[in-house]
């Protein structure tokens, strides 16, 4: 049970302000989710490289010398940027899976990876989480964020949203799935494994598994309507855009706004109050069992 925000910029001039705008939206959703907060932000992609976001419980020791060590293991140049408990490692694209394996071996937790996506999430009030990561300073083309009121799984970093289960893909969710255990077992049989007990991660894994099987993102989102049971509003991010889908009952709130400059999503209108030009924006609610998608 949670608050969701999302922002997709249509023009480049707002890019430096993306983190700032998303942070305001995120903090406004604190009441809906005071347990933890997270954000996925799609920044500049470096040609031929993959960004891997990792989290550590002991960043001072575990991130110390990580850049050099990983570079040696991979036999390739690596750059690391440490942000509080998270570090973003940029590695050559063809070394990405080796790098992830090596990072997991070192006991680090993978938040996500991709050409442009970075994920930051922690336990705590959205305001504090945003400050720790200095989310306001981040730029990019689009991003999604989440504030969590945990229902059945633990309040931990790994239980926070967004969940990423494939490169440059991530998902946030408001609601509660009722067949996630069954779906988790089904996906596991196909070799798709989740890292947490969280229902949302199963939703994310379902979508990325469908895409890996050849479905388009639109088709994968359509699939959630038939294959996932329970209440959900999903917002999913990809390298080029973002998508929205609500379950057929559509009880969990969702509102969208569009101007010439951006498309915004939130659980409540409040989150839009500071967006530029919101007074003149087209504001509407996404229909139940309908997939919405924006790509650049």
């Amino acid at each position, binding site marked *: 049970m949670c608050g969701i925000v999302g922002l997709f910029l249509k023009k480049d001039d707002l890019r430096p302000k993306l983190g700032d705008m998303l942070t305001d939206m995120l903090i406004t959703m604190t009441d809906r989710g005071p347990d933890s907060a997270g954000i996925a932000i799609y920044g500049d992609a470096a040609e031929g490289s993959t960004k891997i976001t990792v989290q550590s419980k002991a960043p001072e020791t575990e991130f110390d010398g990580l850049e050099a060590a990983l570079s040696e293991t991979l036999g390739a140049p690596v750059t690391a940027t440490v942000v509080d408990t998270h570090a973003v490692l940029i590695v050559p694209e063809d070394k990405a899976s080796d790098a992830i394996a090596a990072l997991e071996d070192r006991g680090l937790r993978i938040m996500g990876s991709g050409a442009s996506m970075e994920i930051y999430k922690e336990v705590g009030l959205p305001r504090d989480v945003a400050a720790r990561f200095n989310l306001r300073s981040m730029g990019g083309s689009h991003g999604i964020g989440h504030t969590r009121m945990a229902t059945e799984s633990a309040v931990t970093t790994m239980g926070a949203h967004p969940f990423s289960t494939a490169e440059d893909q991530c998902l946030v969710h408001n609601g509660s799935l009722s067949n996630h255990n069954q779906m988790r077992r089904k996906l596991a049989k196909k070799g798709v494994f989740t890292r947490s007990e969280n229902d949302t991660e199963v939703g994310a894994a379902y979508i990325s598994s469908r895409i890996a099987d050849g479905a388009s993102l639109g088709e994968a989102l359509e699939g959630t309507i038939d294959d996932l049971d329970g209440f959900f509003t999903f917002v999913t991010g990809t390298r080029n855009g973002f998508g929205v889908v609500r379950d057929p009952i559509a*009880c969990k709130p969702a509102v969208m706004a569009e101007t010439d400059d951006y498309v915004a999503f939130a659980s*409540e*209108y*409040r989150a839009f109050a500071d967006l530029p030009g919101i007074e003149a924006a087209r504001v*509407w*609610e996404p*229909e139940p069992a309908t997939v919405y998608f924006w790509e650049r």
Partner: protein
Amino acid sequence: MTTTLDKTVLDMTATDLRTVNTTLQAAAKAQANGAYVITNPRGSHAMACGLDGPLSVTIKGSTGYYCAGMNKEATVTVEGSAGPGVAENMMSGTVTIEGDASQYAGATGHGGLLNIKGNASSRCGISMKGIDIVVHGNIGHMSAFMAQKGNLVVLGNAGDALGDSLYEARLFVRGEVKSLGADCIEKEMRPEHIETLKALLEKAGADAKPEEFKRYGSARKLYNFNIDHADAY
């Protein structure tokens, strides 16, 4: 708080919700027919709720959940859009939304008029118990679910499952109805319905002719259990 000749202005960038509501509630109770303007609502929840007396409130912007909830006698106008559950359980008075209304508009309302100039989302008039709701645009799915009493008038289209498990509320729709819910059927528009509708359209300032509408109501087949209707349960 600034008071001009005939209006008191409450700016929500400077005044918190509790102060705004206690001010409005006290003014309503004083039965003095005052006029209040609220600026910068920024989607706040529970604005102007629980008013219990004649008062005019204009909100300059969009509101969050449960604006004008449980209203009695007051006239509340939102010059923007309203979040979920606007005018929920309203008893009397008038609530006008210049923009769109989110889900559950007028839920369980017992009386008064909810006048939505834009569209209303899903579950408009859910469990309504005597309220009149006029929507100038469209309404979403599951509207008038278990609606008991009152009138829901829609100038545009209605979404799926209109009037599911309907009791005695009357539904008037001018446009298309995507689908009817269980036990909801189209009914004959009799002269008394034309009269009711005409009065409501006039009151809501709606530019439409009663003759253009179709009436929907309960088939009353779910009123007492019957094994042959078990599929509808």
